[in-house]
């Protein structure tokens, strides 16, 4: 009973903060709701034995990406979008309709992935099905990422380098006589 209650609270926290990101009028509140959402998801990841991913979620997202968002929000004057009127008011309803349809289709597909691929062996259970074989430890994750997945892991370093250079190149300033100032 406590288990069901705490899981429901966790789900409500994650979904409620996600809705907060979407509906908040103030952009700073959106970023703060995103932090709540990321912490709730980190707890969910811990329940799935993904220890390293949960820690990286808090460090990378809540620690770095959201701070970057807050910097950009303050740089672009937080309440500058309050004066505009919507030139396409019908887009909001169509967007809500499309998002609802997407949610229903996704839920149907994921439910199908669980219940129809199992061919009558009953619904699988995360705790029992693989007990002992897989513990989600950091050691197992490290062996996977530095063994079987070494090449994709090295490629992420290249992607981060591209991101770094792209951020510098996109915001270089034009000086006088068209000379680029770095």
């Amino acid at each position: 009973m406590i288990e069901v209650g705490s899981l429901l609270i966790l789900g409500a926290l994650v979904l409620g903060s996600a809705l907060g990101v979407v509906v908040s009028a103030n952009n700073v509140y959106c970023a703060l709701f995103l932090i709540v959402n990321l912490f709730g998801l980190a707890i969910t990841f811990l329940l799935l034995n993904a220890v390293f991913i949960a820690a990286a979620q808090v460090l990378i997202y809540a620690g770095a990406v959201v701070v970057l968002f807050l910097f950009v929000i303050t740089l672009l004057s937080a309440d500058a979008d309050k004066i505009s009127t919507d030139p396409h008011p019908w887009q909001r309803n169509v967007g809500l309709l499309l998002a609802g349809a997407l949610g229903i289709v996704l839920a149907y597909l994921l439910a199908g992935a669980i219940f129809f691929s199992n061919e009558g062996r009953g619904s699988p259970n995360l705790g029992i099905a693989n007990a002992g074989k897989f513990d989600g430890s950091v050691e197992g994750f490290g062996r996977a990422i530095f063994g079987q997945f070494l090449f994709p892991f090295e490629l992420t370093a290249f992607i981060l380098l591209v991101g770094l250079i792209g951020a510098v190149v996109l915001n270089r300033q034009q000086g006088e006589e068209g000379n680029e100032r770095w």
Partner: protein
Amino acid sequence: MVIGNPAFYLGLSAMLFAIGAGGVLIRRNPLVMFMCIELMLNGVNLAFLTFGKLWGNNDGQVFAFLVMTVAAAEAVVGLAIIIALFRPRQRVDVDEVDELKG
């Protein structure tokens, strides 16, 4: 045993992705749209981890890790583009950017 039921995690993931997609479609502030894209990526990560645990190997966690690094790089480049686009403008609104409209 609800805590081991994959339907909870996958349902949460589907709803999170749908909420993020709705946010991208509804909101007109590019920064909030970017935050909603992060929501969608996190929903996908949750599904990856759930299926990884169902299969009983580390592949799901490796995929989630790669998604996180790509999301970080994407946020950096995207925010740089947003700054370059909207710093000379008055309003932070995606409808402002219509120079290519015929």
